[in-house]
């Protein structure tokens, strides 16, 4: 026999040579002149940019795990959302523009007031004061209407977006769900939906409002005095290159940040769930270090974003604060020339002054939108997982399950099944046995239509399993594993999964069959009692029964049991045995098991070794044959 560990010396790594979580070039120099420090800072920034770009590239087409979508998908997504709400969106823009515009009348009136005060001309003071009050009241009213519209709009957009995401998750290809990690997915539906919410709910309306205010302010400045406005506007414009650069780089930076938080969460989840194992092995120290490393990496991503923003802020601060000085100087000169009056200068200064706030907000919101867009592309990435099947319209004719020449590879070029042929008799019990890792569970997954075979076919009633609509597939074959989950929802919701239109009688019947009608009826609200995490808690045995009741409702003619009963607590096993028998009664059963009692009792046994069925027959035939099964049986009963 060849030594499976032959290449071990080549692949073993020396831990002492493991690179640190963060390369030393990303740490600031210890003692250096301010000049060198400054240079080092920009070198680090550049390095972090390269890292962010690498992370972004890698996450577009990940080797494992869920992808991230491109910018275009995000834009299209929001454009589509907006285009179905054109009326609402127009209303939003109009009322906000009105609110902003009335707000802008105030500085003009104040300027007028200054004129009146200085030279006594113009409108009388009291009239002006009353006019200002009127405008303020109007502004308050418009503000209310505008905010209200924004809220309604933002909330509507948000709920549509998140429902879309969840619908997408609920449509994820079966094969992908079975094999990909849930940690990252959880981070996406929690942190990323949260970030997206904030940016849709506040960011989008606020950005629109601020943008309107800024644009209208600029318009008002021009109306007030072109001479005073133009120099200020030119100074504003100097920030354009910085803004462009920021917009180009920020998305990758924020997507990188998002990925680091996913990583922190995944590690932490593992730590919490494996607390006992860690304690037993004396691993808490390593785990704490692993967590710290994740945070170290995340801190680098945050530093990149921080520097990006700092550069932007520096440019914007310059561009939007110096107009104060510019306006003053130009104003003084223009006043001395008699081009403008004091009121215009006052108004211009108040505009520049008042522009600070919406501008700050606009920057803040644009930044928030960038973060939101990064999260959205992580969310939309889920939608980019390609479907693994397309439902045909043929329905099975008959209930016989046939697999021919089944081959399958999890990794390209490494088949774990090598041409398996299997025909199940109706109502037959087939046991699958064989060495660990020989492909039994894989065969089970092909026979229940979860994965598409690489070659060959697995069909029921003459139709490929993977070409059946899922709703049909579930009523034909079901794969039962040890995993069970009680959903947050009513008892009824937890049971009718496979046939969601089942009536209460059917539910009760199913509960009776698994022996749980009694305790369900004793629940505070019967079938309507909400169970699941954080709600009414079920015992493990009750959870098991719920899982079986689901199958009774699904009523498939064939069940594939993958060591489904090996973890059942023997005390509950006794109560469950009856329910299990009720479930199996009259169905075709494929049981994958290491307990050979199951095999002994089966009609036929398939021995799978190295991805091939090497023996097939009843217990007695195989014992007689004195081959693999006989040896296994002897070993097991020895």
């Amino acid at each position, binding site marked *: 026999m060849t030594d*499976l560990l032959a290449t*071990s010396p080549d692949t*073993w790594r020396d831990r002492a040579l493991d690179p640190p979580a963060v390369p030393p070039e990303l740490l600031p120099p210890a003692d250096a002149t301010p000049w060198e420090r400054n240079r080092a800072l920009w070198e680090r920034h550049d390095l972090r940019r390269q890292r962010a770009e690498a992370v972004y590239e890698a996450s577009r087409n990940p080797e494992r795990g869920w992808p991230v979508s491109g910018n275009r998908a995000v834009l299209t997504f929001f454009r589509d959302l907006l285009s179905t709400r054109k009326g609402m969106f127009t209303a939003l823009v109009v009322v906000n523009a009105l609110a902003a515009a009335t707000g802008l009348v105030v500085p003009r009136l*104040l300027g007028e007031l200054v004129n009146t*005060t200085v030279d006594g001309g113009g409108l009388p*003071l009291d009239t002006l*004061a009353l006019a200002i009050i009127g405008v*303020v009241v109007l502004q*308050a009213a418009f*503000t*209310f209407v505008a905010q*209200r519209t924004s809220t309604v709009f933002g*909330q509507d957009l*948000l*709920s549509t977006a998140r429902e879309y995401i*969840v619908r997408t998750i*609920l449509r994820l290809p079966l094969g992908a769900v*079975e094999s990909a*990690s*849930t940690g990252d997915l959880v981070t996406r*539906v929690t942190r990323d939906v949260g970030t997206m919410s904030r940016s849709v709910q506040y960011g989008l309306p606020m950005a629109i409002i601020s943008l309107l205010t800024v644009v209208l302010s600029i318009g008002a400045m021009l109306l007030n005095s072109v001479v005073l406005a133009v120099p200020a506007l030119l100074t504003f414009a100097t920030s354009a290159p910085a803004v462009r650069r920021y917009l180009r780089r920020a998305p990758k930076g924020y997507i990188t940040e998002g990925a680091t938080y996913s990583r*922190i969460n995944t590690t932490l989840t593992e730590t919490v769930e494996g*607390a*006992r194992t860690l304690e*037993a092995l*004396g*691993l808490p120290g*390593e785990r704490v270090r692993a*967590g710290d490393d994740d*945070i*170290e990496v995340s801190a680098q991503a945050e530093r990149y974003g921080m520097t990006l923003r*700092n550069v932007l*802020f520096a440019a914007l*601060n310059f561009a939007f604060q*110096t107009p*104060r*000085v510019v306006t*003053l*100087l130009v104003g003084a000169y223009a006043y*001395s020339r008699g081009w403008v009056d*004091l009121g215009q200068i006052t108004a211009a*200064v*108040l505009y520049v002054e008042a522009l600070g706030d919406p501008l700050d907000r606009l920057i803040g919101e644009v930044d928030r939108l960038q973060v939101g867009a990064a999260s959205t592309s992580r969310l939309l990435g889920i939608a980019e997982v390609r479907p693994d099947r397309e439902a045909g319209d043929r329905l099975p004719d008959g209930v016989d399950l046939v697999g021919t020449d089944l081959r399958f590879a999890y990794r390209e070029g490494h088949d774990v099944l090598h041409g398996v042929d299997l025909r199940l008799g109706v109502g037959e019990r087939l046991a699958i046995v064989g060495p*660990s*890792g020989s492909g039994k*569970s894989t065969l089970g997954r092909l026979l229940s239509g979860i994965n598409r075979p690489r070659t060959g076919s697995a069909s029921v009633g003459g139709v490929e399993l993977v070409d059946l609509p*899922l709703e049909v597939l*579930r009523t034909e074959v079901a794969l039962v594993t040890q995993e069970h989950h009680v*959903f947050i929802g009513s008892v009824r*919701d937890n049971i009718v999964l496979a046939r*969601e239109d089942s009536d209460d009688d059917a539910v009760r019947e199913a509960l009776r069959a698994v022996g749980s009608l009694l305790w369900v009826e004793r629940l505070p609200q019967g079938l309507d009692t909400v169970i699941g*995490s*954080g709600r009414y808690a079920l015992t493990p045995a009750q959870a098991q029964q719920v899982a079986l009741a*689901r199958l009774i409702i699904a009523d498939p003619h064939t069940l594939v049991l993958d060591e489904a009963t*090996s973890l059942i607590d023997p*005390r509950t096993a006794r109560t469950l045995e009856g329910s299990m028998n009720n479930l199996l009664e009259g169905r075709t059963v494929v049981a994958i098991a*290491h307990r050979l009692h199951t095999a002994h009792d089966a009609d036929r046994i398939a021995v799978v070794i190295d991805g091939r069925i090497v023996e097939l027959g*009843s217990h007695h035939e195989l014992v007689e044959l004195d081959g693999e099964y006989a040896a*296994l049986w002897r070993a097991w*009963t020895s």
Partner: protein
Amino acid sequence: MQDFPPRIATFFTGTGDAPTPDPDTRSPAAFLRWMLRQQWQVIALSSLACLLWLMPLTFGPYIFGRAVDEGILGGSTPHLLTWSAVMLGVVVVGGVFGVVFHTLVVRTWLISLYGTTQMVTRKIAQMGHVLPRRSPTGEVLSVASSDSDEFGALTEVLARSAAQLVSYLTVAAIVLSMSWELGVLVLVAAPVLLGAALPLLRPLHRRQQTERSRNSELTSMATDIVAGLRILRGIGGEETFGRNYAAQSQAARRAGVSSGIWQAVVEAVGVLLSGVFLVSLVWLGTRQVVAGELTVGQLISFLGYGLFMVGPIRTFFELAQKSTRALVSARRAIAIFEQRPPWREPDRPVPLDGTAEIVDDLSGFTARPGLLTVVVSAVPEQSAALADRLGRYLPPDTDPVGEDEAEGLKGRAARRARADRERRRARIAARDEEAATREWGVRLGGVDLSAARLDDVRRTVLVSDTGSGLFAGTLQDAVDPHGRLTREQAEQALRVANAEDVYDALPQGWQGQLDERGRGLSGGQRQRVVLARALAVDAPVLVLVEPTSAVDAHTEARIAARVADLRRGRTTVVCTVSPLWLHHADRVALLRDGVVVAEGEHADLLERDAAYREVVVRALEDEGVPQ
């Protein structure tokens, strides 16, 4: 001064860092105070930076007013240039410190965020298997992932509010120096405006709370859907749960709209009030200019300040909202951080001798030194319970108590529910402590395990239970998580656990990636890697619970033989009923109702004990006659 990521070494000192102080968990407010105190320097500095950043707003109108009076109306170019230069200086200082402020805010925010996550990790490291007995996993995770963010937000708004307050007082002083009436107006205005809006804040706050709780329900539904996705896609139910989610999402939307409308009311009233304030300022100001008590430039300054007032008021609102949220988060954080390990280190710890006999009083079980003892029980839970006792683990017999249950409760009822939860948690903690501090009842070489240090127990007795799982990482990390094996030792562990095929199945060998919980391996492969990891630790006493339940008989036989061989001379206990292990057992103990009822050699017991035969014998009596 602290920087991010912070250096945290609280709760857990296993990493060799000097310990940092534990958080104050006496009350949510105390916790927040503690957290802020930890980084007061950064917060104070960022407050200062914020103050300087606000300088153009604070002094701009004043400077402008002077420039108008002296430079424009006065027609003096030198004055104009001087004031312009001053303005430029103020603007430059503001710009520079804007960047500094942002840097420091990011710093305080991330110190709180990362620090909280690090404390959670260390709490788990400190509590080990005791934490899941007391707090639900989801809640532990949400403290790290969402509550930590609230703490970050609090540090930011706090720094900003302090700066706004100073800047507001400065403005008041400036105005006061020009006209006492207007100064008083400015000074009085902010509290009055805040006070006037306060009655509106209460209903707003209530609505926001509803909105938050709807949203958190929504999040837990989404998490639930993801957790059960395999079942939803496998068996069905996408419609139902998609619909439930959509219904909840709509409820959250309605709650959001309702709170948003109140927010709009508050905003509008804010606009109205500050408008009224502005008008009063203007009205008074123009009177005074006409009366000659005030210059035009000063009036212009006032108008500028009238607009300035909006900033501080908005910030104070924000402070009020974020503090309440931080308090709620602090309560959840405390529920985790206040947990203490139940163990008490003995005053004079006795070192354990791993080569001695281990005895459990409760069951009467004895494992002779250096032998392989198999524990047989018809009820696997009972042998698992024995294994837990041998390793000094508390039994998994509690329902953890969450903090998040007070859904929809208000006032008295909420307080009562909270008190009730606290009582329940305290009860579990008291029970743990009771069990952990009294004599444990398991003796190794005559020393009760409670007389030794806990990490000595963990080092000496390794219990690998059925819940042991793999962590994401390379195969090498999985077999050698401590990084202290030589390659040969790791190879041997893999061979003894008969897991060479796992190595072979991964294209990069030792560097092949395993996903979380070993997904990507077959069930039996996972179990064998876990076994290899346990064997590689080379503990003086090794307790294996059902180590081969997911592998075939041939593999099991090989593993049993190899393990027996490897462990020869060291105490090993295996809980199983498989004859394949029993063949290699030096001794066998049969448990019934958790008590040893028979003991001896396998062949012997097989001969004389019918009950034993019934549990272990697999060959069917009716062999040959199909049923």
